């Protein structure tokens, strides 16, 4: 009994010792999302920017704040393994450009929204989920959760979940469907991505 009690006590103490570290991590993740949001809004608010420059700015934010390579692999899911090295590298490049072009257009409809950081919590071993709300005039706030992974002392976003809808899962389901309907050929997806990123 005494050994059990001692072990429990030790675990408790170790737990206490680790808590501040966790708290720091979630706090830093919040700061990271907040500063990324600020940067994005700064760009978006400059409505005088020509479309091309705006897209370039968006591309820059995306490549610095998001782990696009990891996201791309997760989106391709089980088909990543089936893809040849050549297909993989072409896919990674096309995927990033596809996302840039898809979302840059949506963000061009910016109308004074602000990002409000709510809470953050650990998720799994490596991730922090930062919950935020996009505050907009004339509408209810939009719930946005950011999945942030820390790696080599830096943070990278690996998923964005809007009102319970994950960008990664949505794209993964869509890509899987495209490939499956073409009899499992990754090339079929590449063809689509090439057309859409031209």
């Amino acid at each position: 009994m005494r050994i059990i009690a001692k072990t429990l006590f030790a675990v408790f103490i170790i737990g206490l010792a680790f808590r501040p570290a966790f708290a720091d991590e979630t706090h830093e993740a919040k700061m990271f999302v907040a500063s990324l949001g600020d940067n994005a809004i700064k760009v978006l608010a400059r409505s005088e920017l020509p479309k091309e420059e705006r897209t370039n700015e968006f591309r820059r934010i995306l490549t610095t704040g998001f782990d696009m390579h990891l996201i791309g692999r997760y989106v391709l899911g089980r088909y990543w393994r089936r893809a040849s090295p050549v297909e993989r590298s072409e896919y990674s490049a096309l995927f990033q450009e596809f996302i840039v072009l898809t979302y840059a257009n949506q963000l061009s409809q910016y109308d004074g929204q602000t990002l409000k950081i709510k809470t953050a919590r650990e998720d799994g071993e490596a991730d922090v989920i930062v919950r935020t709300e996009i505050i907009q005039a004339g509408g209810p706030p939009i719930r946005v959760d950011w999945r942030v992974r820390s790696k080599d002392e830096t943070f990278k976003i690996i998923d964005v979940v809007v009102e319970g809808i994950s960008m990664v899962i949505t794209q993964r389901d869509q890509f899987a469907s495209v490939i499956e309907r073409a009899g499992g050929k990754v090339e079929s997806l590449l063809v689509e991505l090439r057309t859409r990123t031209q």
Partner: protein
Amino acid sequence: MPLTKSPFSIGKRFRLVGVLAVSLLLSACASTTAGNEEAPGNGDPLEGLNRMVFSINLAADFVIVRPVAELYRTVIPAPGRKAVVAFLRNLESPVVLANDILQGNIPRAGNTTARFLINSTLGLAGIFDVAAKMGFPRHSEDFGQTLGVWGMGEGFYLVLPAFGPSSLRDAFGLGVDYYMDPLRYWAKDTDQERLMLARTAVRGIDARARSIETLDEIERSSIDFYATVRSLYRQQRQSEIHNGEVPSLPVLPDFSLDDPDDDETALLSDD
């Protein structure tokens, strides 16, 4: 990208109910395998048929629903549309309350009751959602969600004519909600069943009017619109079942970037 609930829904529930009763028997079998929304494969055994119904719905949307929704949005000013939707939502309160209770969610049941009492009186028969301003925010519930809370999976994906994206579970839930609705019995007794139909139609048009830009954007940015909508529908339902509190995002394993074989990727396959 705010998503409006059931963007495609408009139509009638009546004829579906018989079909759905049979479906429940099937879903009882299906539910055992699909307890977790991630069914093996794509969980869409009727994909061929579903894609066909989806195309028909899109065509009907293009020809009728969308133009009517646009007209509705042009003719009736925003405050008017807000009153319409508030009034119709208030009428749905008994069904929402029943589902709150069936889910054992007492705080939400209290909230729904308070909303109904406040909006029916101070809100002038429901045309103003004053309860929301008094700290009683609206939430949606339906029997499909209740079954989800009880642990039933979606069965399989289903595209309903007129109603749009659904599943075996949710289509059955639609039928149950219809039979739970006190308004239906009132309409039947007073021989005004057309009102029920009108209500469903207006609800559908209103929902469509609120989702015009969103759906356009989704369609424009999709490679496979059908698969995208299927994914969005499932995620949205999952989020609703958990009342917005998504327990945990799916695991994203870390990849070792220098390992070209990527055996870890095996973890990602969803079958």
